[in-house]
């Protein structure tokens, strides 16, 4: 069969199941909200046991990252992510999962080029663009301080 790209795209779109947007959004809202509410509870708990607020601000994401890595290792995270969509992707859990998932999958390629390198296939770009935009901001901020 001879079809051009456009026709094929339309065909695929017409055959793909319509994604139930409202349901997906609801699931993302509930899971993402629950993760954030859990983090907030954790934040207050750490403050309650008299940990300094500056430390707590780092400790909370570290704890969430720990739990996300562990649950990815256990295989629980992926089952949750399948229906949570953005609910697990958008919180720091998604970043954490992006670090460990490819590392787990390509472990067979070795500890250096498998685990070591593959950790950054998705999280690398996040760090790259985050750092680049923050450096640009820093230069602008410095210039504003000097010039104004």
């Amino acid at each position, binding site marked *: 069969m001879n079809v051009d790209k456009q026709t094929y795209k339309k065909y695929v779109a017409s055959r793909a199941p319509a994604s139930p*947007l409202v349901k*997906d*959004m609801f699931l*993302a*809202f509930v899971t*993402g*909200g629950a*993760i*954030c*509410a859990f*983090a*907030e509870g*954790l*934040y*207050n708990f750490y403050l309650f046991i008299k940990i300094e607020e500056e430390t707590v601000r780092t*400790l*909370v*994401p*570290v704890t*969430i*990252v720990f739990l996300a*890595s*562990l649950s*990815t*290792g*256990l*295989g629980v995270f*992926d089952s949750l992510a399948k229906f949570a*969509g953005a*609910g697990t*992707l*958008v*919180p*720091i859990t*998604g*970043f*954490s999962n992006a*670090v*460990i998932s490819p*590392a*787990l*999958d390509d*472990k067979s390629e070795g500890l250096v080029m498998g*685990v070591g390198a593959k*950790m950054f296939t*998705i*999280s690398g*770009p*996040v*760090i790259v*663009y*985050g*750092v680049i*935009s*923050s450096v640009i*901001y*820093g230069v602008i*901020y*410095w210039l504003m*301080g000097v010039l104004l």
Partner: protein
Amino acid sequence: MSLLWDMVKAFLVGGAICAVVQIFIDKTALTPARILVCLVTLGVVLGAIGVYKPFIDFAGCGASVPLTGFGATLAEGVRKAVDERGLIGALTGGLAGSAGGIAAAIFFGYFFALVFRSKPRD
């Protein structure tokens, strides 16, 4: 009770951010990697123009735990470092501010990648 109210705010705001991003997942062809990159960059921009900090003050972890908060932390770190050390702070501040989260993701990711096996996906 203030703890409950804090958690409700975090739930509503964090959930709302996720629900909005879900629209982009469903309606565009953006890959998760691109979405994460967009979120972190958006966070830096919002942090830079000063709108994200008040947002975190209101919603707490509802604003800081989504990846936009990670971007805002980078911007915040850079601003602090430039205030303290001048131009070199533009290079040092961002990663210093977000070091904990990144190092944790690398360390725990590596550790658990060694401990566990990848699960077959269906």
